[in-house]
């Protein structure tokens, strides 16, 4: 495949006109499904996913090894004290151009499920819900790169909506590099938030961080890249995660503000109010 992205060197603009450190448009909504405990819909550019959270609730009958597992690492049984995070991802056949159907046993999907379950388990306070299960269903409606990142962001939003206590948001985004693995050129630029085409042609990684810290919960790199490129890519990715966190936080805050204005929740009492007492 010819490197379309080679034009980058001329104008410093990427195929979709972005600069190296720009995110695509992120659009997010929460509470999209009335019947669910928590739900969200998220677009990162043309990657569109929706998420439904059920739980924490009584675990249903065991469903073999199909789901992901958290904490103890699957099937720990009686001794496990924390809630189990079970993730199920459905990738719609129409979500990508090649209309490839993925079966239930598709290893890539299973791996993403497990990654998601273990990523969320790192932030969710599962110890508060012993012997229960948190079910997270994700549906991929459209794919244009950064799929794993979009899934993580959508799941985080839905978990916040479901009111499951967590340490902080886990947000994710991708980063790439304009260098190919063969060329060890020092002048290569890191890129933020890869779309499908860039993902195909350039080395890249997905990174998920906790809150606005530099602490990495998940780091997935599936392409060959010089070790010297890693630092730049990671730095750009971590920075992107912080931007994403800010955007997601605004989505949640907007919902809260709307509820306060409509009077469905009290405005509460904070520390400052106390000083008045």
């Amino acid at each position, binding site marked *: 495949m010819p490197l379309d992205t080679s034009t980058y060197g001329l104008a410093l603009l990427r195929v979709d006109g972005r600069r190296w450190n720009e995110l695509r448009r992120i659009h997010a909504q929460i509470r999209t499904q009335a019947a669910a405990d928590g739900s969200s819909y998220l677009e990162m550019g043309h990657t569109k996913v929706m998420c439904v959270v059920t739980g924490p609730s009584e675990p249903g009958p065991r469903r*073999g*090894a199909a789901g*992901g*597992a958290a904490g*103890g*690492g*699957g*099937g*720990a*049984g009686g*001794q496990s004290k924390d809630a189990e995070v079970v993730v199920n991802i459905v990738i719609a056949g129409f979500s990508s151009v090649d209309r490839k159907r993925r079966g239930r*046993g598709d*290893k*890539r999907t*299973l*791996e993403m499920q*497990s*990654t*998601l*379950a*273990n*990523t*969320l*388990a*790192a932030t969710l306070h599962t110890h508060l819900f012993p012997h229960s299960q948190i079910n997270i269903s994700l549906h991929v409606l459209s794919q244009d790169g950064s799929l794993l990142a979009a899934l993580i962001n959508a799941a985080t939003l839905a978990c916040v909506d479901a009111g499951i206590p967590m340490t902080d948001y886990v947000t994710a985004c991708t980063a790439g590099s304009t260098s190919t*693995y063969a060329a060890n050129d020092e002048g290569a630029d890191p890129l933020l938030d890869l779309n499908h085409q860039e993902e195909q042609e350039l080395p890249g*990684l997905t990174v998920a*961080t*906790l809150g606005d*810290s*530099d*602490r*990495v*919960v*998940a*780091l*997935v*790199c*599936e*392409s*060959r*890249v*010089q*070790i*010297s490129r*890693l*630092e730049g890519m*990671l*730095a750009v990715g*971590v920075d992107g995660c912080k931007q994403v966190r800010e955007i997601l936080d605004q989505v949640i805050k907007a919902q809260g503000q709307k509820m306060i204005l409509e009077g469905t929740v009290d405005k509460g009492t904070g520390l400052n109010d106390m000083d008045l007492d």
Partner: protein
Amino acid sequence: MPREAEPSLNEKQFVLQALQDSIRLDGRELEQYRPLELTFGDQYGVADVTLGKTRVLAKASAELTVPYADRPLDGIFNIATELSPMTSPAFEVNRPTETEVLISRLLEKTVRRSGALDTESLCLVAGQKCWSIRVDVHVLSHDGNLIDAACFAVVAALRHFRKPDTSMEGGVLTVYTPAEREPVPLSWLHSPFCVTWSFFGEDGDIAVLDATWMEEQVSSGSCTISLNKHGEICQIAKLGGVPVEAVSLLQCTNVALIKAKDMSSKLDRWLTEDAKRRDKGGLLAELSAENDRVPDI
């Protein structure tokens, strides 16, 4: 399926406490591997790797087949990982567990997707005939760090493997049996190795290489980095788990490179020794010439 036994609270607590003082139960340093051993089978393409009490057997095999319709110029290359009850009675036949899926994906990404094997060279007649190379990974004994051991076994088996020689004359493809012509090695491009870090504690600030099964059960997260000796990352997988500072991850990668280079030179040495052992009397000069042609791996 019988349950997998979980370590007791005492054990979990002790392992963590000892690691905080940089003590490991077997007396190793935090960044020290257990002794890595490799034995080749009588046949080509069988590698038996032991890493402490972990033992993995990989067997490479080849078969003539038809290329996939969407990739007529490529041969077929598959890695099959199935954990049998021999690994642990908790594994059931024909029911893949999460561990199995993750290992097989990691091997796939490390060896296959990184282009270690030149799949184009496996194609004999475009769209009609190609080699299908298959590596079967058998975990005989599981005492932690299956991934690093399995990856080493797969790479060793593939580099040791010889496929039957073929020739094309006037559009007629001839495949020679081992009795007719000495089999030839695969066209191998680079050797990636997996290095797995395990993280401990609430903050993930203790990082340990080559964790044992007990350590793996206590750990709060892990990160597998695959590299070749040229300093190319083939894959990184930190699939959730405890958050780790980005800077520490970069450090882990640098240490991983040293370990990968170490493994690379070990494998080179074992391959040379095995070649010598097979080449008693130097009757396979032809083969050694072939070996020279293999690019510096």
